[in-house]
């Protein structure tokens, strides 16, 4: 079986990407696109974690508040083969606390609620923050470009 153009057996893990960012999804071999706010991405990830997936990257941003950034992209990994019901406790703890942070937020941003120009910037920054991780996990097919000074 090929995944990202590479035989799966070469790696002990395979990865998946959950995102509500269309521009980012377009740069990936395969992405699970979530049509909804960032919180929906987190909840989808929680479901995956309960079925044995682990978070590759932290579910919170490093400098953007949930009430600013409408986009969220998560990379999860799974050990090859079926992992059954072994749940990664740390991932679960992280995703639950991230969900709590997002749910606590009084202002909810949804994709497309900003002027197009700024919306694209948010998509772009979401991409740049995950670019390195996506690359390392072999999920990235091409880079998202964005020119300055529109």
């Amino acid at each position, binding site marked *: 079986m090929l995944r990202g153009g590479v035989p799966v057996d070469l790696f002990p893990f395979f990865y998946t990407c959950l995102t509500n960012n269309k521009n980012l999804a377009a740069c990936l071999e395969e992405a699970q696109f979530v049509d909804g706010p960032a919180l929906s991405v987190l909840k989808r990830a929680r479901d995956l974690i309960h079925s044995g997936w682990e978070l590759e990257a*932290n579910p919170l941003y*490093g*400098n953007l*508040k949930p009430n*600013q950034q409408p986009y969220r992209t998560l990379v999860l990994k799974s050990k090859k083969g079926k992992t059954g019901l072994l749940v990664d406790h740390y991932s679960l703890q*992280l995703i639950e*606390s991230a969900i709590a*942070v997002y749910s606590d937020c009084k202002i909810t941003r949804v994709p497309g609620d900003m002027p197009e120009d700024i919306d694209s910037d948010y998509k772009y920054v979401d991409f740049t*923050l995950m670019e390195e991780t996506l690359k390392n996990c072999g999920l990235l097919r091409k880079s998202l470009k964005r020119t300055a*000074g529109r």
Partner: protein
Amino acid sequence: MKLELMKVNVKSVGWGDRTEVLKDGTLKVNKKELLAHVTDEENLKSIGAEIALPGESVRITPVKDAIQPRYKIEGCGQVFPGMVSDVESVGEGKTLVLEGAAVVTCGRIVGFQEGIVDMSGKGSEYTPFSKTCNVVLVFEPQEGIEVYAYEKACRLAGLKAAMYLAKCVYESGGTPDKTETYEIPPFTRSMNAFPGLPKVAYLYMLQTQGLLHDTYVYGIDAKRILPTMIHPNETMDGAIVSGNCVSACDKNSTYVHQNNPVIRSLYERHGKDINFVGVIITNENVTLADKRRSSSYAVKIAGMFGVDGLVISEEGFGNPDADLIMNCHKAEKAGIKTVLITDEFAGRDGASQSLADAAPEANAVVTAGNANMIVVLPPMERVIGFTEYVNVIAGGFDGSLKPDGSIEVELQAITGATCELGFNKLGAETW
């Protein structure tokens, strides 16, 4: 390693024929020469230069970085190594400092970018850069260049300008008003220097999440480093440079890296209450594996040097809270006592959880304040930069720009307001 900072006091800035510091402390700047020096036609369509002084009715936004003008006049290397100077190691010899001056760069890298510096009024109480005499550079990108190239061009232009100003002052015969000496001997000696005093190091966390959230050490993107030792004096020569454009309140601008208050405070107590043995830099990456690796490695270094205590400072919020807590937890488990410096995102009403992570070991925390607090900034007579973006800046929200020109924002929008290096007096308490 010994470094002398030769400080020339700057009390005002004005344009002039020659770049120099007058007897009365006025920094005169030849605007044309300055602009010619920093020009970058390939990436920057235009560069404007303006002056903003403490107390003036001026707003600068969106501020990208602030840099203190410095220039090495003795010793190896030159300021901002690996960025605008050669990669040679710095931190030794003599460095001329224009104390009280700053180069402030202003450019819209992304549309939602924040960063307000008000030179007077309510906002000026919160930003450190209302107290400095600022030469403000305003950038417009060349058409068609990519965002990351634009960020880099802005970053380099600011550094060049800062170095240039200090260099001109030196060459025009500027004389220092005071000299500060910073010295820590080699480990073999420093380790035995003050028997009886606890050995203390500083664990210096750098924001390294990705483009527009990066920090550079000797020109290297710090997300690709393993935690390492750095001499505190190196930071004074600009070995650490900010490439961070997001979250104005708690991104560490290059200015605060150059003037790291933790390092200054540790030096102040050095030989009296503590034996300050060094600085460990570490990063704040996004993947869990990187976080685990870096926190374990950094604490291991601290352990190798047998330190008794660590001051740990964070940069940013959200997932870096996890790094902060890991660093703390692992250090305490290794028997090293820690004090953390962070800021809080407790919501506008202050009732939410301040940090995204917590540990019982984190029993000694200094806070730089709740960044969600709302402030109303009065209208200013002059605006440098672009205010139409204030409506969507990080701390702002729809309607934050009022018809009368005042803006209602979260503290987060104000540059350096909750600096997690502990640069300010702002804090928070439980009511």
